[in-house]
């Protein structure tokens, strides 16, 4: 492992320094601290926040810096958009260093794929696919253990003892006669060679991993001090709104901004590739000015159909043959006939477009100089964003500085290439050397596309009265997210993987299996939405499994167990769920329960939902029990929080979330029409973690897929009518 020793204020750091950055320093009255440009996060204060650039920190390796006053600063290469990786990643380092948790601080890494690439993504730095902990696990253990070894060796030399006589615990380096903090030893430790293969702890030696450690970002997020893109204030900064076409793909033909020019605070209006940028000295002035612009659009290439027309076509296509992705045995032959005691079951499932609808609408602060660019935002794919900016501006990627900030949610939305960041840069380049904050209103955010693709699944299977499946035919129809984008090269195989993930590798035992996909082109753009293809694919598979069980009068849990023989981790979560949720205990009249199990992003999750109708005959989900196997749970409480959140997130799609088109125009423009789950709809959630010694896997997304089928299966049990589409309409 490469452990270059480098002082913090080295060439690398000073290259981030430039004139423009010092220029844009402004006192922020909110925090009483400085909001600092370029490479420096707006921080609150050391007392209030564990975060921030620690300028006096000395660099032990790419992930570990230590200050003379004994603070261990962990460099976080992933974006924290709520999933808690700042805490989790810092914990791994602190564990192997034997640091005291109270001395641990953190900072977001700069964009630098040579040091901070996602190890699962080749030379790309980014956060997604629930990979943050999983790809960092060994890397950060090594980083922490290597730093620890440097302190041990330095102390041994200083105290004249063998290194085996030196221990580290709770942030102190000790021998039988000496004791020193990391801070006291940093100069000496930095002279030590970092071991290439440092000794790692055994699981039995963990003191932090597996324990409840409070989130490191909790204090600043409960006092209004946490800084998001929306909160960045730079001297002389302008706010930009963009007048976008009423539909994706529309093109600005002409505009009249004469009324906008009369708005107090108006600065400029000009075309950018996607619309008309309207700049002013405040948000309100920019919004008023934008509202006052009269624009003409060419909408000839835009969608004209309604959602129902689109679905009609999807259903038609689903009934025909698609491109085979998985082929095992002769499904058609099996399905062509059935004997006594065999049932052929078929179903068609339908899923709508869904919006990410992050609480913080997309935004980005950009400052473009003559041959430089500096960005402040919740960057989910820093090196891709850096690449986009460098291409757009014709400058070297390293001239693009990205200051990563907390994101007010993402769920995949901020991973989007070539989107809002590009718009912000397109604006900033036209008003050079002056920072501009491009903000989307909620309406912009809702109408700019990038939805979880709508989909139709046609499934047919043959099941015997004994519970065995002899054929499973599955055709998934949806648009491909990456087709026609700069990332099309990532599509591996004839059909984009999102259409059939979690289906082509069906865990249930079947004598024959044919999984097909058909990509339908769309002018409405799609994007990765929390758990991506799994979010809808699990709904189709797990609802269908219940229909098969129902056809042969089997208990849904027993039916699954029998078909998952040998799949120990599927069985592990199912068994834990059954035990904790009292599966076999009947519920009172008017209540019913359903289960589902799914593996996504390397983690296994089973969920049980209990449903009933309230007095007004509205469906309510009373309780959800969840069992998760994510390998070693670094922070069990954050694992539980992610499951709770995923359940609530997915439940919105049960109760009413959907994006629909009317003559090509999106109907849902704000939270009055697009309806994420509300407080009173949240069920009681219990989460149980399968004890494991396996390497950790992701938890940000895998809690989403089983929820909608678990609820649908409970509704099926309650009403006797299968659920074929979301949101559930009764």
């Amino acid at each position: 492992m490469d452990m270059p020793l480098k002082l913090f204020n080295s060439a690398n750091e000073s290259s981030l320094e430039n004139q423009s950055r010092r220029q844009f320093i402004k006192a922020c009255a909110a925090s009483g601290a400085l909001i600092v440009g370029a490479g420096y996060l707006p921080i609150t204060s050391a007392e209030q926040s564990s975060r921030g650039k620690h300028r006096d920190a000395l660099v032990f390796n790419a992930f570990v810096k230590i200050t003379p006053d004994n603070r261990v600063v962990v460099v976080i290469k992933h974006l924290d958009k709520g999933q808690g990786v700042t805490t989790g990643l810092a914990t791994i380092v602190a564990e192997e260093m034997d640091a005291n948790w109270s001395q641990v601080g953190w900072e977001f890494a700069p964009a630098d794929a040579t040091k901070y690439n996602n190890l699962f993504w080749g030379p790309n730095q980014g956060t997604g696919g629930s990979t943050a902990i999983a790809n960092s696990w060994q890397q950060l253990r090594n980083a922490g253990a290597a730093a620890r070894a440097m302190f041990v060796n330095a102390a041994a030399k200083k105290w004249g003892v063998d290194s085996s006589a030196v221990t580290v615990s709770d942030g102190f380096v000790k021998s039988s006669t000496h004791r020193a903090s990391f801070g006291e030893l940093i100069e000496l430790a930095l002279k030590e060679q970092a071991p290439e293969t440092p000794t790692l702890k055994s699981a039995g030696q963990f003191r932090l991993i597996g324990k409840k450690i409070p989130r490191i970002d909790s204090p600043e997020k409960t006092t209004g001090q946490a800084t998001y893109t929306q909160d960045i204030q730079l001297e002389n900064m302008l706010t930009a709104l963009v007048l976008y076409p009423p539909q994706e793909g529309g093109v600005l033909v002409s505009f009249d901004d004469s009324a906008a020019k009369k708005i107090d605070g108006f600065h400029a209006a000009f075309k950018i590739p996607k619309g008309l940028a309207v700049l002013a000295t405040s948000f309100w002035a920019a919004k008023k000015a934008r509202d006052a612009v009269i624009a003409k659009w060419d909408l000839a290439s835009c969608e004209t159909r309604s959602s129902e027309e689109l679905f009609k076509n999807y259903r038609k296509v689903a009934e025909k043959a698609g491109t085979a992705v998985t082929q095992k045995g002769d499904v058609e032959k099996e399905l062509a006939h059935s004997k006594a005691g065999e049932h052929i079951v078929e179903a068609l499932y339908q899923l709508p477009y869904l919006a990410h609808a992050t609480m913080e609408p997309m935004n980005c602060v950009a400052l473009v100089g003559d041959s430089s660019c500096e960005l402040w935002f919740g960057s989910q794919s820093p090196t891709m964003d850096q690449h986009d900016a460098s291409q757009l501006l014709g400058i070297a990627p390293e001239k693009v500085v990205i200051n990563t900030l907390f994101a007010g949610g993402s769920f995949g939305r901020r991973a989007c290439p070539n989107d809002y960041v590009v718009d912000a840069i397109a604006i900033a380049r036209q008003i050079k050397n002056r920072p501009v904050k491009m903000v989307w209103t909620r309406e912009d955010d809702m109408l700019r596309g990038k939805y979880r693709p709508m989909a139709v699944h046609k499934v047919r299977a043959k099941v015997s009265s004994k519970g065995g499946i002899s054929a499973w035919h599955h055709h998934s129809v949806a648009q491909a997210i990456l087709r026609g984008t700069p990332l099309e090269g990532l599509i591996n195989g004839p059909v984009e993987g999102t259409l059939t993930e979690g289906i082509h590798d069906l865990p249930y035992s079947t004598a024959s299996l044919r999984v097909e996909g058909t990509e339908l082109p769309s002018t409405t753009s799609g994007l990765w939405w929390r758990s991506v293809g799994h979010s809808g694919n699990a709904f189709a598979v797990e609802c269908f499994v219940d229909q098969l069980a129902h056809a042969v009068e089997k208990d849904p849990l027993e039916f699954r167990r029998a078909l998952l023989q040998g799949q120990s981790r599927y069985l592990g979560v199912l068994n834990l769920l059954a035990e904790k949720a009292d599966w076999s205990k009947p519920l009172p009249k008017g209540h019913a329960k359903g289960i589902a199990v799914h593996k996504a992003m390397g983690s296994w999750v089973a969920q049980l939902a209990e449903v009933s109708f309230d007095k007004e005959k509205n469906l309510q989900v009373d309780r959800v029990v969840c069992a998760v196997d994510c390998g070693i749970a670094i922070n069990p409480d954050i694992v539980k929080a992610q499951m709770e959140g995923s359940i609530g997130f997915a439940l919105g799609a049960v109760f009413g979330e959907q994006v629909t088109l009317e003559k090509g125009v999106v109907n849902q423009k704000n939270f009055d029409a697009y309806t994420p789950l509300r407080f009173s709809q949240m069920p009681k959630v219990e989460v149980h973690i399968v004890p494991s010694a396996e390497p950790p896997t992701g938890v940000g997304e895998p809690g989403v897929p089983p929820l909608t089928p678990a609820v649908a299966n409970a509704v099926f049990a309650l009403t006797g009518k299968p659920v074929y589409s979301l949101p559930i309409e009764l």
Partner: protein
Amino acid sequence: MIKLKVNDQQKVFRGDPDQPLLWFLREELSLTGSKYACGIGACGACTVHFNGVPVRSCSMPMSAMSGAEIRTIEGLASPVAKQVQMSWQEMDVVQCGYCQSGQIMSAVALLERNTKPSSKEIDEAMDGNICRCATYQRIRAAIEDSSDKLGA
């Protein structure tokens, strides 16, 4: 000219009377804890206290602010508020955190007028605040924890 008090300090506003309170707080007073998220009062991320009552500052024009006493997350100081923030940390409520100032402002307003809210009263007080991370279960736990401790 509109005079109002924000976090016990006298402030003066001279701009467009149509401008919502939120932008005065965020851009002129640099009180950025209250967030913009929907602009139509449908999500609660901008919740502040107006004469002690929780309101959506994104939809309250400055013209209605004459003589108002506004409190934002930055100005929370009452024993109830401090307890609520402590309970929030104890339950580790936050995820992305963007809505949490608004959630806390709604919870504080509830507990300041009723330290023993029923489950239904908690529902009513909190249903206007969306949390896209769906931290609702822990929000409820934090409110109940505060209620217990304030009543003790």
